[in-house]
């Protein structure tokens, strides 16, 4: 009993420590953004807001065209997530549920792309995007990000978990392969689609380097690029930049908190 208690306390201490490490950068940014007094470069630094107020946020809205950036980010994120879910599902379904020659080879090649850091692709992707005349377009920003091995891997796993009997039942009911995919299997993997969608949303929203490479007109920048790029242009203070960064994070927090229930939902009642 005693041993169990100490073990539990130990577990919680470790989890709290990990939580603190994760939260710390966000907290420091938030403290910087909300404080209106004190030197942010002072040592030792202070981790509690001094004279908290929303002045820095007001200033951020004044000096940075946040609403425009926000709209650009939403556009890029929405289409990235939409195409990623559609195309990765379409790629994962046959790999999971169909038997065809070369299936394992195709899957192996997709997995092989995971070993390369994304930065390695920048040059090749930029050449491709240039040749396709997609520089300075959102299509150019979105295109290289809509198919990823991780998403295919996750969705393949999801499709494999759908009971074969359901697919057989649909087949006997007269469903063709597309109907099975669209009306039976895809609705059943909604929790997985939500997971991939949330991860893709965060990734697309926070993407910084690739949009920065492809886009050159500042008014077309997404929020992540715009806030940092324009900080120099408008000579804003670090506190205003921190406020802008907090504003960038907030929508993601909202998305994450409102959709996390989808992570855990199962397939109750499908089969015994």
């Amino acid at each position, binding site marked *: 009993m005693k041993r169990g208690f100490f073990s539990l306390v130990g577990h919680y201490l470790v989890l709290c420590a990990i939580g603190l490490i994760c939260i710390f950068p966000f907290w420091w940014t938030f403290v910087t953004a909300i404080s209106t007094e004190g030197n942010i470069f002072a040592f030792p630094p202070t981790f509690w807001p001094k004279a908290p107020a929303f002045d820095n946020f007001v200033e951020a809205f004044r000096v940075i065209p946040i609403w425009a950036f926000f709209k650009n980010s939403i556009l890029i994120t929405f289409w990235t997530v939409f195409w990623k879910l559609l195309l990765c599902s379409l790629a994962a379904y046959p790999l999971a549920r169909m038997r065809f020659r070369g299936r394992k080879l195709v899957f192996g090649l997709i997995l092989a792309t995971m070993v390369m850091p994304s930065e390695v692709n920048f040059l090749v992707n930029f050449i491709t995007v240039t040749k396709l005349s997609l520089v300075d377009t959102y299509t150019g920003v979105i295109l290289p990000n809509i198919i990823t091995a991780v998403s295919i891997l996750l969705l393949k796993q999801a499709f494999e978990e759908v009971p074969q009997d359901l697919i057989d039942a649909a*087949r006997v*009911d*007269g469903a063709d392969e597309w109907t099975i995919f669209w009306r039976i299997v895809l609705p059943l993997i909604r929790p997985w689609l939500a997971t991939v969608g949330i991860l893709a949303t965060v990734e697309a929203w926070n993407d910084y380097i690739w949009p920065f490479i492809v886009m050159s007109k500042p008014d077309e920048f997404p929020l992540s690029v715009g806030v940092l790029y324009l900080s120099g242009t408008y000579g804003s203070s670090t506190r205003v930049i921190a406020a802008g960064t907090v504003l960038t994070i907030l929508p993601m927090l909202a998305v994450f908190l409102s959709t996390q229930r989808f992570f855990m939902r199962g397939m109750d*009642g*499908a089969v015994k």
Partner: protein
Amino acid sequence: MAALQLKNIVKHYDNGVPVIRGIDLEIADGEFVVFVGPSGCGKSTLLRMIAGLEKITGGELLIDGKLANHVPPAERALAMVFQSYALYPHMSVHENMAFALKLAGRKRAEIDAAVQKAAQILQIEHLLQRKPKDLSGGQRQRVAIGRAIVRKPSVFLFDEPLSNLDASLRVQMRVELSRLHQELKTTMIYVTHDQVEAMTLGDRIVVFNGGHIEQVGSPLELYNRPGNLFVAGFLGSPKMNFLAGEVVSADVEGVELELVGGTVLHAQVDGGALSSGAAVTLGIRAEHVALGTAGAPNSVPAKVGHVEHLGDVCIVYAQVADISEMLALKLAGGTLHKAGDDIAIHLPSEHCHVFDGAGKACSKK
């Protein structure tokens, strides 16, 4: 309704392992046929081949006289009820039942009427708006059957549909399936490993073993005249008693055989094909074994080993000298025998079966 013909049906998996080894079977229009056999005998695989869910490696499947080997499942006019129910969890009961008709492009009014009628038959009208997760096992099974009914199929295929239900619900559903068959008069093929389901539901039973058919016949035919040792042992609870012996004399009128312990018994079977000295197995069902008198013809002394009181009947397991396996006797309930009692067992010759060295039964007189 439809008749089915299976001509030398063969199934090999990709690795060459054979699972179905040449099945020849004819199923008449409106017949209720039960495929029964131990796990892994190929009965479910054959059902899936009939449904079109498994490729047929060799042979011919004819549905209403038309070759159906390569016909897609939906075009075979069959409906299948799965062991796991296989209800679409994101759809309501109504949507589950209407799905096939929607795909077939039927009008909404027609679909609603068909669903209502099936729901009425199965008494699930009050469940139509629920999702499968909100239903009990028995209700899910009814919905699965309802989904099959609405399509008005020519043949119903049932793949162990009751195996996930508890004992009392299984009995209830068994009765309902029988009623359903009488009402719809549609051809039904039912796969089970439960011999009680096989005996109670089927017009004919097909006993499978190792990918081939051991015997086909009516339930009582198979029970009373099993064609071989496997069928004799598979049907019946407790299973048929088997005693190893050696032929003393045999002719078309009967077989005289000597058990391991030296006891000589007579069986009223056609022993014309047996020769003296041949190794045989004597079989007798528990309900045919009676208490007898020591020294009387066809009687052997035994010691009671274990007694099971089931209320209406009592199963007595008795040890015969020099024979390792216990013999089961089904006696009337309330018997006073207890472990350790000395008894004499009578094996009526008219109820004795004799199986030759290859396990084939000698025909009964």
